[in-house]
């Protein structure tokens, strides 16, 4: 499992490259696409770190379950709260839905 330092160097360059990319893209006005691209790159960087730096692939199945469980709980917190914020102004008469 012990991969050579050279691999980690490439990983770092990849991550740094992604950071420069996301900063650069943020300067260009892509209309609605800015938001998803920035989040996508952040998720990509995050998965690189979790997979290679934190060696989750060599960890036990239990650790993977906890990692996925954390994402699930974060999504519960965010989705159910936004469920309230999105539907707050749908007054009960549907004609006024945005």
């Amino acid at each position, binding site marked *: 499992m012990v991969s050579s330092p050279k691999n980690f160097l490439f990983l770092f360059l990849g991550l740094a490259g992604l950071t420069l990319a996301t900063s650069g893209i943020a300067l260009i006005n892509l209309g609605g696409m800015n938001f998803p691209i920035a989040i996508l790159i952040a998720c990509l960087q995050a998965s690189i770190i979790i997979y290679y730096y934190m060696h989750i692939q060599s960890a036990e199945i239990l650790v993977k379950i906890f990692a996925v469980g954390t994402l699930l709980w974060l999504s519960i917190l965010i989705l159910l709260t936004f469920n309230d914020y999105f539907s707050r*102004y749908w007054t*009960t*008469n549907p004609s*006024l839905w*945005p």
Partner: protein
Amino acid sequence: MHHEAIRIAGPVTTMSGVVDQLYWFLVFLTVLTSGLIIFLMLFFAVKYRRRPGHEVSHVVIEKTGLIEAIWIGVPLIVFLVIFFWGAKIYFQQMQVPAGALPIYCVAKQWMWKFQHPEGKREINELHIPIGVPIQVTLISQDVIHSFFVPAFRTKMDVLPNRYTNLWFQVNQPGEYKIFCSEYCGLWHSLMQGKVIAMTLDEYESWVDRGKKEPMALKGEQLIAKYGCWQCHQRGSTIASPIFDGLYGGKVHLSDGRTIVADETYIRESIVDPGRRLVAGYANVMPTFKDQISEEEILQLIAFIKSLGVSPGPASSEKTP
């Protein structure tokens, strides 16, 4: 009219009877189920208690799947029935019927201030006619309160940054206590009031007593006083949205969203203009945050409403 906090007997409002039906069903369910469980528990305890003649049974119950399924399935069905029943009542209680008599209520730390559209203002007392749906629009000046009338079986929190609505239609004249049921500080328990339900003609005579100054009229005077016409009128030099047909219409915001101009949006535009800017307008309007009181804002909104409710997006076209 005898004074009395609540009346369990006959339904006071159209909705309180419906809520009571759900209540008695739930009470029946609780008594039945807990009675069954406690009786079974005690029966087993007595029947199988350790005593000399008692032979210890070694039978091991294997097939428990069926009975487990029963006491998952049956509660599931019963719960879903209660859920839909409760949701139906909730929908009715949250949907203000058209043509309801509007009452405006401003909650302040430890008192209720009411305004009638005809201009009558009262503190901690609310006179309403019976037989007519009443809509109470609630706003708070400081912390979260909660407008709770036990007899009407209804309650709604009063938020400081948003209007919340509550409606009821009283059928029996009488006095009904108002409580503040969300903790709001030192004299939270002092914040009580009375709803006085009267027959229609009694209410008419009550409202006409004293000088009549409808809220819409006062709203118009306020608009002149605060100089809103300088911008918000056709032909004014500074481009700004006009009020005709604003209320209820769709407004296209500068960030691309379209919302419905309800009371909260209008109040927000007065108190914090830059928050939801109309598309195509600059954020130049000064804030009137601490200059216009909540009651006056309600009067301004009443005036804007009186300019007609427009379904179409008339309000966002520019002045020349």
